[in-house]
């Protein structure tokens, strides 16, 4: 066996926080513009170029906002779980930052999913809130996001905190399906999932705006996530500089 000097592969090069800062600044503007264009197309379809449902009427259009948010509420947790593996196994600082930046965004999208869902539920089911399985498990997911955001704020040492939070995030990721199952077992009213393995169970006139809106919201998340990651890296640098400055003025030699 020959001993090779370990050269960083393309991924760890790109994922170095400093390198990330320099390449990501060229990405934000294009991503934001792309998000905006997708939103314009998606909203045009959603409001002007899709039929009202024969049962639900115009309220069906709430779905074009609700379903993308519900999808993001779960995707963001998935992204946090993957980042958690990255920060536990490789102790990668960028994975920490990705995990931290995703938590408030996930909470916001989950809150929007709950809010739009209840706006839709009022005319359709005749109630703002129902203790239905899917709604309850989304609410539980929201509480978990809030807990994680609060946990990040209590740690002074962010890099040690990141690993502990990663452990908790992963246990939560394993638990979410169990919670979902148990809550659905407990009470179910929500309609079955509309996106199945064999395609969408809806006519293309409704599916088209929905898919475009899901793409638009996903792009929105990635744009916001990138901005949040950048400001988190810069916040950490600012904190380090501040600490250095204090040490120097207090006369403590490094």
């Amino acid at each position, binding site marked *: 066996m020959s001993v090779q000097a370990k050269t960083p592969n393309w991924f760890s090069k790109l994922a170095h926080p400093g390198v990330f800062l320099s390449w990501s600044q060229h990405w934000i503007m294009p991503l934001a513009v792309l998000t905006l264009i997708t939103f314009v197309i998606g909203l045009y379809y959603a409001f002007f170029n899709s039929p009202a449902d024969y049962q639900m009427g115009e309220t069906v259009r709430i779905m074009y906002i609700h379903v993308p948010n519900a999808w993001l509420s779960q995707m963001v947790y998935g992204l946090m779980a993957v980042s958690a593996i990255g920060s536990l196994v490789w102790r990668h600082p960028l994975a920490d930052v990705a995990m931290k930046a995703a938590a408030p965004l996930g909470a916001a999208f989950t809150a929007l999913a709950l809010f739009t869902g209840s706006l839709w539920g009022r005319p359709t089911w005749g109630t703002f809130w129902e203790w239905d399985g899917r709604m309850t498990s989304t609410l539980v997911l929201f509480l978990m996001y809030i807990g994680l955001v609060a946990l990040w704020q209590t740690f002074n040492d962010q890099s040690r905190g990141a690993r*502990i939070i990663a452990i908790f995030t992963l246990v939560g990721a394993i638990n979410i399906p169990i919670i979902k199952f148990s809550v659905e077992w407990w009470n179910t009213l929500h309609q079955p999932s509309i996106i199945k393995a064999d395609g969408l169970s809806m006519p293309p006139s409704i599916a088209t705006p929905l898919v475009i809106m899901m793409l638009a919201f996903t792009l929105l998340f990635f744009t916001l996530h990138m901005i949040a990651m950048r400001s988190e890296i810069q916040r950490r640098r600012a904190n380090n500089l501040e600490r250095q400055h204090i040490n120097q003025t207090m006369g403590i030699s490094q």
Partner: protein
Amino acid sequence: MNAFFAIITRDIKLALRNGGSTITLLAFFLTIGVIMPIAIGPNKQLLAELAPAIIWVAALLSSLLGLDRLFISDHEDGTLLGLQHAQISLTAITFAKLIAHWLITALPLILATPVLAVMLFMDMPTFLATILALLLGTPALVTLGALGASVAVTLKRGGIIAPILIMPLTMPVLIFGISTTNSLAGPDASNSALLFLSAFSLLSVAFIPFAIALALRTAEE
């Protein structure tokens, strides 16, 4: 194995000689049982119907109450650091501490349940089913609670954070625990909730100690 039992006896001795904590916990548990009827009103039928739910909520809240002391004192005086170099793994030590914690906090609550059962007018089948469900469900509550405690062990202003983190994860215990009582004591007895509750408890007890040990090790670095 000696080391394993030594940890259990140590933790129980510490709890008994320091005193107070178990009594506080019992008082808290019983107080919730007193407050609920006052809030709901002395309606015998309604109370009997709500009794399993009240007992479960009381048990859940009391198990969250004792959390913050689980690892913090060992962390502060350096015991936790020493335990990492023990003969047995930190996971085994965690497991021993969980057993001790269950004996100190959960078992007294289950023993005190008859008092609440009388005050809430429970009938015998419901009472027995509740005891069974508590025996099966509290190990999961203790393990999940310990996970919260291990995550918050280094936090100076941790306090309330562990319960907030843990509460969502305990949802399955609550759901299957109360369903166990209702289905066993109800007219059409079925044991599916009982099986789910046992499965959840077993899975938590089997896997979460590894996560707790990992969190404790990270905290001591």
